[in-house]
């Protein structure tokens, strides 16, 4: 950050790019060349597409680019899945399994592939002109805060900021506050919930009690939200410190009153991508016969599930959400609107919690066994996790921060915290709090890895 702040404006993008390459190479050294090569090819494909006039040739270049992006995504993310399933099918007859060396997954591939697609498709749709500078395209794709876990940013949302962003000290302060909020969510709530969730999920379902299963399921539900939204907050915060305005990715999803609303609040940028680059091209709501809308929805959610992971459980998870969305469109939403709010809230949250069991366990039979325990098949004397004060404390915090927007006071607090209309006094107070939280987070990160063996001293 110091380097970025100290260099002249003309070198800031270079600093970002070098930093992003180092960041990616740190986590995924083998694949930094893959991402650099594909972005180079993509950039040139799009340039060629823009140069030609013929719609047919434009389409050809579009297909080239999409094939490259989706081909790589398919190869790295889904090959293992398809080969394993195919091998399993074939082995049922012959009893032999096809040998296959598992491929490693380049980190962030799902995110940057989708971003590349937005660039290619939007140029094809003539929403914006292609970039004339390859390095700017690299900055857009590799921008480190959002490279690994989003938000998924459409090119046109950020195109202006790549060359001409407004950087003010006040915006940097807001960015820093946002970063600390995200870090605190991740370090304090998500990591703590993760410990309890992992403890429960590490047991075979027949070894845990009903209360234990609910504890694990709820802990995981809060873990995934605070983990993912915390990361998004950190990305948005770092972006702001460098003058970028990334789109919001979460908006209190667990306080949704239906699954339809949930998907407007959860992973918002992925939802927007799916809508703009999949649902609308499939015909969106303007399709005949009208039932095709449901087919389109199922296709979108199937792909959304598959995007999350190459496992049948993710496919099921996507279809499961798609199913509830369709049921809501058919009749449920109308019924829910006529019922007290808490019914919708309870229903939507329950659907999400159950869905996340599949998401976490990644195996359908295991997930069903776990759900059976949750819904009454657990033995009361079986393992139910240590529901100590620490769990209750962080669980309450997670619960409060997930649902507080439903209360007028909670909503007011949230609006103040994220308002970006601070006076100097508010800034001083927020800076002080940020520093305290930074120290607390640093203590938690550092301290959690320090587990000395006292007995070795003797």
């Amino acid at each position, binding site marked *: 950050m110091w380097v970025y702040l100290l260099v002249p404006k003309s070198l800031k993008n270079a600093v970002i790019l070098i930093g992003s390459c180092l960041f990616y190479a740190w986590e995924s050294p083998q694949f930094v060349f893959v991402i650099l090569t594909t972005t180079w090819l993509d950039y040139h494909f799009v340039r060629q597409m823009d140069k030609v006039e013929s719609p047919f040739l434009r389409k050809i270049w579009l297909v080239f680019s999409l094939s490259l992006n989706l081909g790589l995504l398919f190869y790295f993310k889904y090959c293992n899945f398809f080969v394993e399933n195919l091998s399993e099918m074939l082995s049922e007859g012959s009893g032999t399994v096809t040998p296959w060396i598992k491929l490693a997954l380049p980190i962030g591939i799902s995110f940057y592939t989708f971003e590349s697609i937005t660039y290619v498709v939007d140029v094809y749709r003539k929403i914006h002109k292609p970039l004339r500078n390859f390095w700017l395209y690299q900055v857009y794709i590799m921008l480190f805060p959002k490279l690994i876990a989003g938000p998924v940013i459409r090119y046109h949302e950020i195109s202006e900021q790549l060359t001409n962003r407004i950087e003010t000290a*006040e915006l940097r302060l807001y960015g820093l506050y946002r970063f600390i909020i995200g870090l605190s969510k991740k370090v304090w709530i998500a990591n703590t919930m993760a410990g309890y969730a992992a403890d429960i999920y590490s047991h075979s379902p027949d070894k845990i009690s009903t209360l234990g299963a609910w504890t694990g399921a709820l802990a995981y539900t809060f873990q995934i939200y605070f983990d993912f939204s915390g990361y998004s907050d950190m990305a948005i915060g770092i972006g702001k410190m460098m003058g970028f305005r990334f789109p919001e990715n979460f908006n209190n999803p667990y306080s949704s009153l239906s699954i339809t609303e949930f998907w407007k609040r959860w992973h918002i940028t992925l939802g927007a991508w799916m809508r703009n680059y999949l649902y609308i091209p499939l015909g969106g709501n303007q399709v005949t016969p009208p039932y095709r809308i449901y087919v389109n929805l199922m296709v979108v959610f199937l792909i959304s599930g598959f995007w999350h992971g190459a496992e049948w459980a993710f496919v099921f998870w996507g279809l499961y959400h798609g199913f509830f969305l369709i049921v809501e469109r058919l009749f449920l939403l109308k019924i829910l609107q006529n019922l007290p709010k808490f019914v919708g809230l309870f229903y939507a949250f329950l659907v999400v919690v159950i869905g996340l069991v599949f998401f976490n366990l990644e195996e359908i039979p295991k997930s069903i066994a776990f759900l059976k325990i949750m819904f009454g098949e657990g033995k009361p004397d079986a393992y139910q996790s240590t529901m100590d004060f620490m769990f209750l404390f962080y669980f309450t915090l997670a619960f409060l921060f997930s649902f507080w927007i439903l209360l007028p006071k909670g909503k007011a607090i949230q609006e103040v915290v994220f308002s970006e209309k601070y006076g100097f006094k508010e800034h001083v107070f927020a800076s002080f709090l940020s520093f305290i939280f930074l120290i607390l987070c640093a203590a938690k990160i550092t301290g959690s890895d320090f*587990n000395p063996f006292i007995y070795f001293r003797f």
Partner: protein
Amino acid sequence: MKNQFQILFYLLLTGWTLFLVNGIVPFYQPDALHGAFTPSQDTVLSWKTWWSGRFQKKMNLYCNDHVGFHPNLVRLNNQIDYSLFSKLHAKSVLIGKNGFLYENGFNRTLEGKDFIGSEAMAKRMRKLKSIQDTLQKQGIPLLVILAPNKTRTYPEFLPDYLPLHPVDSNNYNISLQLLKELNIPFMDVSEWFVKIKSESPYPLFSPYGIHWSRYGVALVADSLTHYLNQNGCYTPELTYTMKYEKDKTKIRASSDFDIGLGLNLMFSIPLDSMPYPEFNYIHQTDCAKSAPLFLADSYYWMFIYEEISRNQFGNQWVFWNYGKEIWTQEVMDKHKPYELINNKLSASELYKYDAFILIISEGNLSKFGYGMLD
């Protein structure tokens, strides 16, 4: 206003940067952490280590352990978890009622989770019996001291979420049975402490220590003296008077606070004054002090710290720590490096000593003999 925002931002960023700077060029050195802990070592960057991800993995660990103010950050985290949630970050330590600290392994042992099986234990005991027979012919006494177990002595302070389920088939019960059957002399301090704890005028374990309290060690030392003197050895008679130590710094520096120290908290746990023995030795100058060999675990350290070894055995005692390290009075006094044990027990080796005493705590019974009996 713009400048004020600028100042605030740079102040925050500087505060942040201080963690890095103090890690690289320490301008402030906090007190080191207590407990056995191996910080990650620096690593060498090469194409191979980077490509395989080994460099990054090691570097991440290294940075975590060497970030500026690392001990303070660890203590802050430990303090928050201890004060708010009664959670500890020291491995294998658990907190019970009234802040009583236990070593986790002893529950496992009571519940037979480390039980090595009757036959394996019998094999080791038979070997010990044959050693005892050999030594007896030379007039060298052998004694097994079963050191006490804090969990067994004070189960009432265990946390409610951790009910004990002791089983019959555990290393302690089988050892006891075999010691009786084979007629090997032993002192069952574990059982003894359970019997006397309700009438004991002083605590047998400190709330924040792993090992027997200083009063507890005085009781054992007294009994050991009698045993040795009744079996052909000479050690000065030992008496003691109990006095309450009010200096908390001394208590914190003592073995009565050995787990407490390892918790690495920001603020020390409030302590009550502890009763400590003041020893008096009645030495008959015409008698030469015996030279015993102690094959023991960490329970023996209290004999050394309390100067019982020096006063009762002079410079002649030898302590084989876990059967791996050789400690003597000379090593202690001159801060010399201890030697490592290379050989198993042999008759010629044992004949050098006037007595052979094996001290073993319940948690270590699965390692009975510390691999030396073969």
